């Protein structure tokens, strides 16, 4: 019973780490891209769409983290 609860707790911690660390990584990646996108858009509004697109590319990493979290939470 105690072991079961411990396992569930560790899984929850693992899921949290998967999403949290992926989020931090994506944030670090997006900071540079976002700044460049804002810079380019400030000069030429035509870069707005492309800037947003490039800025969200690192966000895919968070989706991977989220998938891992779901697998941990529901597959075990």
């Amino acid at each position: 019973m105690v072991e079961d609860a411990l396992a569930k707790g560790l899984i929850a911690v693992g899921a949290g780490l998967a999403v949290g660390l992926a989020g931090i990584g994506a944030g670090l990646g997006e900071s540079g891209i976002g700044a460049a996108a804002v810079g380019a858009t400030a000069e030429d509004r035509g870069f707005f769409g492309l800037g947003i697109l490039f800025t969200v590319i690192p966000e895919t990493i968070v989706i991977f983290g989220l998938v891992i979290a779901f697998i941990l939470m529901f597959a075990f």
Partner: protein
Amino acid sequence: MIYRGNRAAWAYIVARTKVMKSRLMKAEDFRKLLNMEFDEIVRYIGETEYKKEIDELGYKFTGPRLLDHALYANLARTYRKLIEVSFGASKFLITRYLEKWDVWNIINIIRGKMANVQPEVIEDVLVPAGERDLEFWKSLIVRDIEEIVKSFEGTPYYEPLSKVGSEDISKIEDELYKVYYRELLKLNPTDFAMKLFLDFIKMEIDIRNVKTLLRLKAEDATVEEIISCTIPGGYELTEEEIRKLAAMPIDEMIKSLEGYWFWDDVQIKGKSVATAEIEFDKVWINTISKRASNYPLSILPVLQYAVLKKVEVDNLRVLGWGKYYGLPNEEIERQMVIL
């Protein structure tokens, strides 16, 4: 190493200047302009980035003087914009680099005052691109030379300026540029961004010095005269090296230049000094481009833009005056830095 320091801050200013750089005129634009008449050139330029200045100054000036004033006004506006949109380390470095224009303004004001030129005419040649704004320079124009010199008391420029009246103005100009570079080289290369900046400055000094060396050698100047006109602190051309090169006959000196970074297969044999200088300008621009690509998140792409903008303005001036005086296209093209 591609990146060190505050990545987001560099990304912002670099992306912004890259967009600004994309608006600069290309080689094919210059070739197109070469086939136009003077009035067509002014009209063409008036539809580009220079529209605001051409429109504003169009009622005041005509002919190549309109072109000159509009181009310099645009250059000043562009440089001030670079300072305004940057922040942190990039703002500091851009401001320090553009202080070069303060020297330009000081010299133009003093020259103008010595020749009793009208204040409005002096004002028109000013490029308030540095930290000091147009109001500051305007306030200097109305004062007399002693007061102008006094207003720089406490700055590094005071010492050479205090010789105004007792020494030749071109010597004072050389001294002021020496002070400008000396002050820049005093910066401590504490981080990678600063190191890249200082290397850029040292390389710029080398290019200035090699051009001075060629020009003075062609005029049979003595070693001491050459040394007094060159700027200490170069990347490879140290004072000792310059002294060694200056003592050689010109052909031997040109051969000895082959080992330096700025040689890069430059063909200057049989060419005039002015054409040789343009060859070195081309090498300089190519070198900055390569270095800016190697270090994309640094001050180098911003400095590259500042240099290219000045080259564009110079090219348009050469083109305008050349066309106005009916020079042949080949001659005008030879005087332009087209890559």
